[in-house]
């Protein structure tokens, strides 16, 4: 039995998506086959429209459909604070936490020589002119080895410019028990402990 070419093409395109293995691509294709035409057309249009409308903000490299992204153009944001993250998804995660009122800078990756990603492949150069306005840069890359290496690289780069550089806290996630934390996390959580009540008369 030969498979219909348009089925083969669809399975091939779907299996290019990240995290979609060949089995999943086939199941997705069959699923799509069973959907009404309008749903397929809506998905197809959503893909094209997203590609047409979306681009990176020329200032912070977040995703936007405007000239400048929503955060960069919001006058109520604290423009002296820049939070450097790996991916646009991290901006969404931080915004959802509701704890942050500054600006962002999206690197679009981490330094990873074995994946062929050096500093020049990230949006590091456009960060430097932004620092003249900044009071503090928060390095909020992930706490993986790659995220940490990227943070250390940026620290070395920014430090001489006289801007305060800070690193997102390592520690126990909320809801965590010590016994599930590995010793590196635990060591960091201990050394990063926060005083909550002071000794002495001043108290």
């Amino acid at each position, binding site marked *: 039995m030969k498979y219909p070419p348009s089925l083969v093409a669809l399975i091939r395109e779907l299996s290019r998506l990240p995290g979609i293995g060949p089995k999943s691509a086939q199941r997705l294709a069959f699923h799509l086959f069973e959907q009404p035409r309008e749903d397929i057309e809506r998905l197809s249009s959503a893909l094209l429209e997203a590609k047409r409308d979306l681009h990176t903000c020329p200032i912070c490299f977040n995703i936007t459909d405007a000239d400048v992204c929503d955060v960069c153009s919001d006058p109520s944001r604290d423009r002296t604070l820049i939070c450097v993250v790996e991916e646009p998804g991290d901006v969404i995660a931080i915004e959802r936490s509701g704890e942050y009122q500054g600006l962002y800078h999206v690197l679009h990756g981490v330094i990873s020589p*074995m994946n*062929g990603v050096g500093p020049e492949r990230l949006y590091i150069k456009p960060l430097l002119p932004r620092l003249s306005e900044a009071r503090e840069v928060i390095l909020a890359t992930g706490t*993986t080895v790659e995220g940490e290496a990227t943070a250390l690289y940026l620290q070395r780069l920014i430090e001489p410019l006289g801007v305060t550089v800070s690193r997102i806290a390592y520690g126990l996630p909320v809801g965590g028990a010590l016994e599930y934390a590995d010793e590196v996390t635990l060591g960091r959580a201990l050394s990063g402990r926060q005083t909550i009540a002071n000794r002495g008369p001043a108290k």
Partner: protein
Amino acid sequence: MSSRTANRSGIVIRRHVTPAGDIIVTLLTPQGKIKAIARGGVRGPLSSALNLFHHVAVQLYQTPQADLGTVRQAALEGALPTLSEPERYPYAHLLAELSDQLFQEGEFSETAFDLFAGGLRGVSRHPDPEWVGLVMSYKLLGLAGFVPRVARCAHCDEADPAHPDPLGGQLLCSRCASQPPHSEPVLTFMRQVLRQSVRALMEHPLEDADRDAAWRALERFVAVQVGTVRSAAGWRSRLQDGLRARA
């Protein structure tokens, strides 16, 4: 009773997170290279242990139906936090990527594991991590059977060649060569690196100027013999790096 779970201990040489939140890791262990998946791992406690360059003990679960074994438990046995430092990080990548390319799954080799683990420790601690990276790369290649010809010209078999081989990273005689000869220290290094002990090599590092030539030879040799090694961008970082990491 044949068990489908096995405990293994090794170093993470690759780590990839899928959009579904699974962590796929490649471990180099004394029992060989192992690739396994921690399903949903990025949201759970496995995420901490299964980090690049971490030495971890894992419990693996394997069914005949699945290609990849599953990581069920992971306990950190050792981490080398300094490997994130810009002057060390590229060389850790280089050793890990080389090991991934040189050693195959199912190939039992305690020596390979010990050599790689020693190299990583060296990169993490030694005041001259670049030198450790250069020496240990040659050592890993040698262990895997990739030995540069240094006694005879790579083109015409003439004895005692001394000139760079700009394509293959070996040595050429004066007739076959288009470039001036290597400096004496570089020649000595290339002739001795697979004969001398790591300890002896560590004691006599090449000067900065000579290293470029040695790196270039290594890069060409790997490109021709082993194939693309993407950390290549990293191992020449000392030439390009705006930070000039080496003090």
